């Protein structure tokens, strides 16, 4: 069984038509898992269910084989999940350092080691540590958001469209950062609009359509699949 898995998930907002229909998402340590699919396929909803921001009406979420379906967001974060939202993922009027400290709010032990790790991974944040995050560029801000999420020492990072709204030249930088996260032994699960580039670095890809698993496979397999190419990658 995978490190984090959501199995046969069914979920709806306000008892309306389900957004997720029996969908399964898994992420493994040291791997990048990517959820792609058209608008409204339930990509972000799947992530919300895994995080505990939305309760599924059926199916279960497990972490290291333990059922965490009933735990609150806060409790899941304590267990090692971390989430970087698509927008508003930093505290703009606080400095880089303060953003990282807030990421570690729940911790009572010494955080200097983790701070050093984050600064090691994102050297630009170290140079800008006393600058307000609201004044940083889009890419740097995204790094601050990653850094904030890493401060709880998560074992799995959930990223909601990390490249949305940033300049094209920054996208490569962000993908590099994601590979760094993976190489540090964490599990990475992300929702991404930029499907081709995301699948290129994905160890595992989930193509969702109308809340169902349409295709599942390694990134390479999906990129090679003519049906996936035609429907989602523009040929």
């Amino acid at each position, binding site marked *: 069984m995978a490190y984090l898995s959501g199995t046969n998930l069914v979920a709806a907002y306000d008892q309306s038509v389900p957004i997720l229909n029996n969908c399964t998402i898994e992420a493994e340590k040291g791997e990048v898992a990517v959820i792609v699919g058209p608008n409204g396929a339930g990509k972000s909803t799947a992530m919300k269910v895994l995080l505990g921001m939305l309760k599924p009406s059926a199916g279960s979420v497990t972490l290291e084989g333990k059922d965490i379906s009933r735990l609150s*967001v*806060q409790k899941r*974060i*304590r267990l090692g999940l971390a*989430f970087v*939202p698509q927008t*508003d*993922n*930093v*505290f*703009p*009027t*606080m400095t880089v350092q*303060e953003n990282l*400290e*807030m*990421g570690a*709010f*729940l911790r009572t032990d010494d955080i200097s080691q983790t701070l050093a790790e984050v600064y090691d991974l994102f050297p630009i944040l170290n140079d800008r540590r006393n600058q307000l995050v609201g004044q940083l560029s889009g890419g740097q801000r995204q790094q601050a958001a990653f850094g*904030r999420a890493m401060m*709880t020492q998560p074992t799995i990072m959930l990223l909601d469209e990390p490249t949305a709204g940033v300049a094209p030249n920054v996208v490569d930088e962000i993908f590099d950062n994601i590979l760094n996260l993976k190489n540090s032994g964490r599990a990475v699960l992300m929702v991404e609009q930029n499907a081709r580039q995301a699948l290129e670095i994905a160890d595992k890809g989930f193509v969702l359509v109308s809340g169902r698993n349409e295709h599942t496979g390694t990134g390479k397999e999906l990129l090679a699949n003519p049906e996936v190419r035609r429907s989602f990658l523009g040929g």
Partner: protein
Amino acid sequence: MTDILNAIVLLLNFVFLPGLSYGSQLALGALAVTLVYAILRFANFAQGDTMALSTVMTILLTWLLQHFGITLGFMPTALLALPLAIIGCLIYIMLVDTFVYRYYRRQKSKPITIVMASVGVMFVTGGIVRFVLGPDHHIFADGERFIITAREFKAMTGLAEGLAIKTSQFLTITIAILLVGFVFYFLQRTKTGKAMRAYADNEDLALLSGIEPHNIVRVTWILVAILTTIAGVLYGLDKGFMATSYHQLLLPTFAAVIVGGIGSPPGAIIGGFVISFSELILTYAYKKFFIYLLPEILQPDSLLQFLGTEYKFAVSFVILVIVLLLRPTGIFKGKVI
């Protein structure tokens, strides 16, 4: 030369010192309003009347202390009553929060709904104040009225004009500096203070970081109780207590908050002084000032007053309108309501 000195002393005595102390009192109240706006996301219309209520508690405690013959010597006895009054004010605020605001917070009501609720709280609080102390003017400052009287100053310097420093002015300015210093230290340096700023900045992300909203709300109300009580008591020591005048402080306080940038603590401080100095500069009669400075032939006959003091509220109001038209975010780029 002495004429110039006399003119300067005149302005220091009638514009600068009163402006500094009135500005400090406004700044403390404005800081409380801005904190509530930043954290609880509504403009608290009950601020003025809560200030009145906490001052009433201080007055009652002062009378009690005086009754038992306990005073603070040359300092006002009210200072002794202050800590208890802060606790009393906090209890009142927490009761209001529990029975009024918490409901709307849980419902995730729109800010305007909560603002209307705070208008209700304002009326109830104002009612309690009038019920307890009535509408009359009460002077509760005891001890020495002046640190330096105008006569002493004249004797020391030989000038025709005196610079009197009232005890209440001295206390206001010293306590305001200490209190503002404490609040800023708290917000900038402590973990709880930073969490408050984080919560104000991005509520959802604060929740994702494990910050507890209940704690943030509670700490905010504690700061508000401290600021409100101290602002109210300092204002009362300076100008005496009257329920109406506290109620009317709402306009200059809100003007200060908006001028400075709503939700911005430094903005609230600057805004307080902008409002107080504008009021005093525009309502001061400059006749005597120019008599010192101009040759006899040019000396004015009129009072040289831009506005009568009874129009001082118009000053806050006009500043408010100008700021909202030209720079709605205020000096420090606050939020736009």
